[in-house]
């Protein structure tokens, strides 16, 4: 499995990766990116990614624009995306779902919340 975590906070990225490891994906490859642009670059270079976990508010290219770019490209349109958002940017959730996000969690989240969202996506 190949996961991509996009968040401008390295702490959040590490928490997400650790949660994924605890959820039974410890042998997987974990790619990281600090903004949407870097996220796209990782996807482009990795070839195939099984799941993207993406923050909304980031420098350079925000999470929604990342999602738009992902969905605009036929090779990537099918990649499941889990959006991570904060209570104050709840309005972004509706927009993200409209653009084509597959699920979302709201920060601050517990490991259980994240795990159940991921299980929901990966079955």
């Amino acid at each position, binding site marked *: 499995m190949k996961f991509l975590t996009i968040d401008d906070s390295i*702490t959040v990225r590490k*928490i997400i990766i650790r949660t994924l490891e605890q959820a039974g994906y410890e042998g997987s490859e974990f790619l990281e990116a600090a903004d949407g642009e870097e996220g796209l670059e990782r996807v482009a*270079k990795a070839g195939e990614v099984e799941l993207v976990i993406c923050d909304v508010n*980031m420098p*350079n290219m925000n999470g929604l624009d990342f999602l738009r*770019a992902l969905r*605009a490209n036929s090779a990537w349109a099918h990649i499941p995306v889990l959006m991570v958002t904060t209570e104050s940017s709840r309005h972004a959730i509706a927009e993200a779902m409209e653009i084509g996000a597959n699920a979302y969690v709201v*920060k601050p989240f517990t490991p259980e919340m994240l795990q159940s969202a991921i299980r929901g996506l990966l079955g």
Partner: protein
Amino acid sequence: MANGNGPDRDSKAYSEFLSEAEEMLERLRGDLADLEDQRHDGGEVNPDLINGMFRSAHSLKGLSGMFGLDAIAGLAHHFEDTLDGLRLGRIALDSPQAGMIGNIIDLFGTVMASLGNEAEEDQMNASINELIANLEAGGTGTEEEDSQSVPRLLLDPTLMRALTEYEEHRLNENLRRHRIVLLVEAAFEILSFDEGLSELSSSIREVGEVISTLPSPGAAADSQIRFVLLVASDLDAPAMTRHIDSPNASVTAVPEDTGAASTETPAPAEKLEPPKAEPICAPPVHQQELSSLLVQADAPAPPPSSSVHYEESTSSAVDEEDAPHESPPPPGDGGRVPEEFSSLKSVSDTVRVDIRKLNELMNLVGELVMHRSAIGATVRTLSADAATARAGEDLGKTYKGLSRKLKDLQSSVLELRLVPLRQILDKLSRVVRRLRRELEKDVILELNGVDTELDKLMVEELVDPLVHLVRNSFDHGIEAADERVAAGKSEQGRIVIDAFQRGNHVVIQVTDDGRGIDPLAVRAKAEKMGVIVSGMELTRKEILDLVFHPGLSTRAEVTGTSGRGVGMDVVRENIKEMGGIVTIDSDLGKGTVTSLTLPVTLAIIQSLIVGSSDQFYAIPLNAVLETLLIDANEIQSSEQQELLNLRGEPLTLRSLSDEFGLPRAEDAEQVYVVVIGIGESRLGLIVDRLEGQQDTVLKPIQGPIGEVRGISGATEISEHGAVLVLDVAAIVEDTLRRRDLR
């Protein structure tokens, strides 16, 4: 303050959070200093700066929430609101709320430092609530969007919908300032789009603002990805096209909605209208002032030093390329152009390379060097025998030529990793500017040798130690103005940073003309703390060296400026990790000079760590062929040499303990053999333990030990401390020669 939710405070995540929060605060402090600078200079404040601060506050809020630090999250929440108001123009920069930003950042610093101390945490909560109450008293700002004065644009509704509130605000703000709004569309190859896109963005930022970067709805080939950038600039579309000068980008002006077209139906035809070349808004005002701006921007730069100044020549070269220019590129972000101007040229003739690829290249060169050693051994063998001496001589010549070229290759590859110190030294001048304001001390910073080059990895590691040294000089070294005048010094203090290369090392010196360090005071404190025995005889240098002892500082109180916890001992530790040394010298009443001496590069090699007796050694992995675990009775001894039958071939064995005169492990039933090889030669090294593989940084051994045959240097490994690196070529050669002599 913690409610017990979220990750444990002892967890790794928590300590990562602390260090990230510390970084964010540091960045916020820097941004605030820049913000104040820009306000002092007058003119428009760079919107990216405020937006960046907003994002930092947003991240702080999210993070502290995840760790159950509710009070901090609450403070961050209000901080975020304030900055949101500022970036959206609802709160004015000169409002009382904006004036509290510095207080908020300071409080964050204090609160973060008190974490873990429950008594203090409670006190902090009170301070936080008080500050929040003050913020709330200021209200949330007023909606002052003046829609009347903003021209309406015929912008694609899909695009318009994709804009965030902030981006929309920036669009209006630019319209209010009569800038031209352009759409720049570009397609890039998927695999390299990041380079193309960032090159395009930074090119545009030289002459305007990138409001939003959106994936383009336009169809693109599968191997391509398209973007549309919403841009505001004083340049019109043709001028922007010339400025960008890229075949795969197209620029169109967004036409103004004159009211002639029906606004209810944004017909696609309007979008496709041929772009109008003429500007919709009033022409830019300060075109002719560009040159004077260039000079102005130069002025606040650090004091005259041959090496620190923005390269005007580069800027004007870019200008000429733009000719014929009816509109030379005016500043986009409130006069901050010149700094970014100079980057255009360097972008075009620079190739970005992944540092891992460079490491691979380094390793290959390292292997070549080992093969060369093997050839050297052959040369000696051939030359020693009269029958082959002639051939030996010929090969010897070739060997010398090869050695020369290999040396060139090695240094060329090393050079690839080198970057000038300019970037971090510039950062230091920012630190000084901020301290100057915070401490109200008049101090100038002089930078010399900013073009001195150092390994990229090291340059990044150097930031913290250097910032610490500069702060120390500023805070503890330089006296207050009246004290200086009384001592017959000029009112203005002076910190000089000199960087220069000395042989294979780079020396960075931080010199201040402050009060200096009193050896007697250091000595007294060291005695009091039991670091040295009272009355112990020490030279002046030895006494000064005591300031690197953990916890020893000549001033008792800790000020916010010089930070807590990080003392000179940490500086020394950091520099040691890079293979460097720190020395300090001081003249009481006249000043202090701290010198960092660092190797030019950190060449990384993969090593196998082995243990013999109580010692550890590193064997460069590219010389290791295999490792074996054998029964001790498999070793055959004959004529003082030990052999192992390895798949039918005799392998000469050599005990690492014997090699370095260590006691041999007694009566071990099984031993490890590391088979090492150089060229065609093989040797089995008997070791007591295998400790695993590790990336190691080779450092030369300095001091009284000097050169030891069989050791090529030392390396630092976290669990084992200093570890010697074996010179495989020398060990193989020696062992085989010994065997041949028998």
